[in-house]
């Protein structure tokens, strides 16, 4: 039997939450923007009125102001958005335990098991849509289908505050005429490749012989074909399953461009300390360190390296990150933003194989020191104990990635 899957998308989430709390601004073009001083001066979200002026997410604040002179830009309040995200999820969880968040403002729900209690998919979707508007004062658009991909297409189909059903009876009329690039994970590169073969819509993609797609895209071709034909079988995860954290990372667009290895080292220290502290909170040690670098020309890359043994020490994470950076960056351009993440987790209480030549006592002591510092920072704030090295340039190191970190969608696969 077909599943009943909902995809709920909070419309212009940040902007909607802000507008709710600032009723006087509701009728004005409103955008949430980053901090220009910190060089995060881009539009993060905008309301419908701002959208009408052509204001786009990701563009510079000055560009947006040029298009829309009356634009009101407010700074982001992430704790508030997280609260509303949680409140939405609490409503979802009343209908099913299979709630899979996709970023802060989207989620899939598999309600197949509760249609007997609450009525069919469209009925549940209507109820959720009405409740979120009444109880939380923001709007969602919801797609209902038998698979996650079409459910997501449905939630994009009609906004805001709407429900779209894509069923086996109507998907040819609703989903197939849409551009192929509307499909999840058909990005600019894939859609360019498809377009060069006159495959512009989802319907055309569905009609291509899967053997051809496989030839063009490898096994990704089969996935695309399944997506277009509504044959994606991916399950909606139980909410708790996602609590299994696969990686912990922090990144930062620095207050000024980084000019040399010394600058990079300082920022990596701050990031690694935050990553290490978050790992210790979870009781993790990790064995793979990954860095991401973006230069002033906005060229970016990521590289990773496996460590000889699992660690939760910020010194070892920093050292590994710095090694990876040195091996991969040639300083053609100054660095604009940089990130560190650690994956490949195990629990920090598993027995470890000691090495004759390794000073394990010292590592143990270092871990104890870092745990002590964690405790001090929890009680007295992030700035209470700092590394002397980081005081060389407090403009560069005076941010707190642990408190500022925000949620990004994890990959679909």
């Amino acid at each position, binding site marked *: 039997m077909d599943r009943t899957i909902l995809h709920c998308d909070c419309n212009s989430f940040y902007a909607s939450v802000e507008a709710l709390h600032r009723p006087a601004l509701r009728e004005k073009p409103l955008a949430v923007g980053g901090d220009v001083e910190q060089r995060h001066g881009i539009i993060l979200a905008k309301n419908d009125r701002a959208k009408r002026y052509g204001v786009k997410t990701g563009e510079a604040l000055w560009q947006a102001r040029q298009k829309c002179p009356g634009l009101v830009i407010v700074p982001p309040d992430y704790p508030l958005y997280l609260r509303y995200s949680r409140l939405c999820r609490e409503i979802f969880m009343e209908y099913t335990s299979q709630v899979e968040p996709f970023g802060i403002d989207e989620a899939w729900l598999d309600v197949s098991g509760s249609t007997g209690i609450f009525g069919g998919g469209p009925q549940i979707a209507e109820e959720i849509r009405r409740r979120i508007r009444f109880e*939380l004062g923001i709007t969602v658009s919801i797609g209902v289908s038998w698979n996650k991909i079409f459910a997501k297409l449905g939630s994009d189909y009609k906004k805001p505050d709407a429900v779209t059903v894509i069923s086996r009876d109507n998907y040819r009329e609703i989903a197939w005429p849409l551009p192929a690039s509307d499909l999840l994970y058909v990005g600019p590169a894939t859609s360019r490749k498809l377009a060069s073969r006159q495959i512009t819509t989802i319907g055309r993609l569905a009609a291509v012989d899967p053997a051809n797609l496989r030839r063009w895209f490898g096994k990704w071709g089969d996935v695309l074909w399944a997506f277009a034909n509504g044959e994606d079988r991916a399950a909606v995860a139980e909410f708790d399953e996602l609590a299994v954290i696969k990686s912990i990372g922090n990144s930062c667009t620095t207050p000024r461009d980084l000019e040399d290895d010394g600058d990079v080292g300082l920022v990596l220290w701050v990031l690694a300390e935050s990553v290490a502290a978050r790992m210790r909170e979870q009781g993790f040690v990790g064995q793979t360190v990954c860095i991401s670098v973006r230069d002033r020309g906005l060229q970016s890359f990521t590289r990773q390296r496996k460590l000889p043994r699992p660690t939760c020490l910020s010194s070892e994470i920093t050292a590994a990150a710095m090694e990876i950076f040195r091996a991969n960056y040639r300083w053609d351009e100054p660095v604009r933003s940089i990130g560190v993440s650690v994956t490949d987790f195990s629990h920090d209480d598993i027995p470890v194989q000691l090495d004759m030549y390794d000073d394990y006592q010292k590592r143990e002591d270092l871990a104890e020191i870092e745990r002590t510092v964690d405790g001090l920072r929890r009680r007295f704030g992030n700035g209470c104990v700092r590394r002397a090295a980081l005081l060389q340039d407090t403009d560069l190191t005076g941010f707190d990635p642990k408190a500022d970190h925000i949620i990004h969608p994890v990959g679909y696969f």
Partner: protein
Amino acid sequence: MNDLARKVYVRVNATFGTDGSISPEVIEWEDGTQYQVERVLDVRRAASMRAGGSGIRYQVRVVWDTPEGQPAYAVSYVWREDDNKWFVEAKN
């Protein structure tokens, strides 16, 4: 669209029930007037589009003394936000 209201945070005396439920007993207005909550008519999570915000919304029947010393009654909403701040929608 909808007329706007002033969001006014108010002092509230509330009772914590043995089941953890919270119900307002006295609402103190900006000018110091005390409104006795005679009855809670409805409790639900709701947004206030007029004042801006959301939380647990209590619909209450309140009674207070007018300056002439006469009792007066009204039915009104009071919201409890997630951080336990209480607000009402006031006329602009």
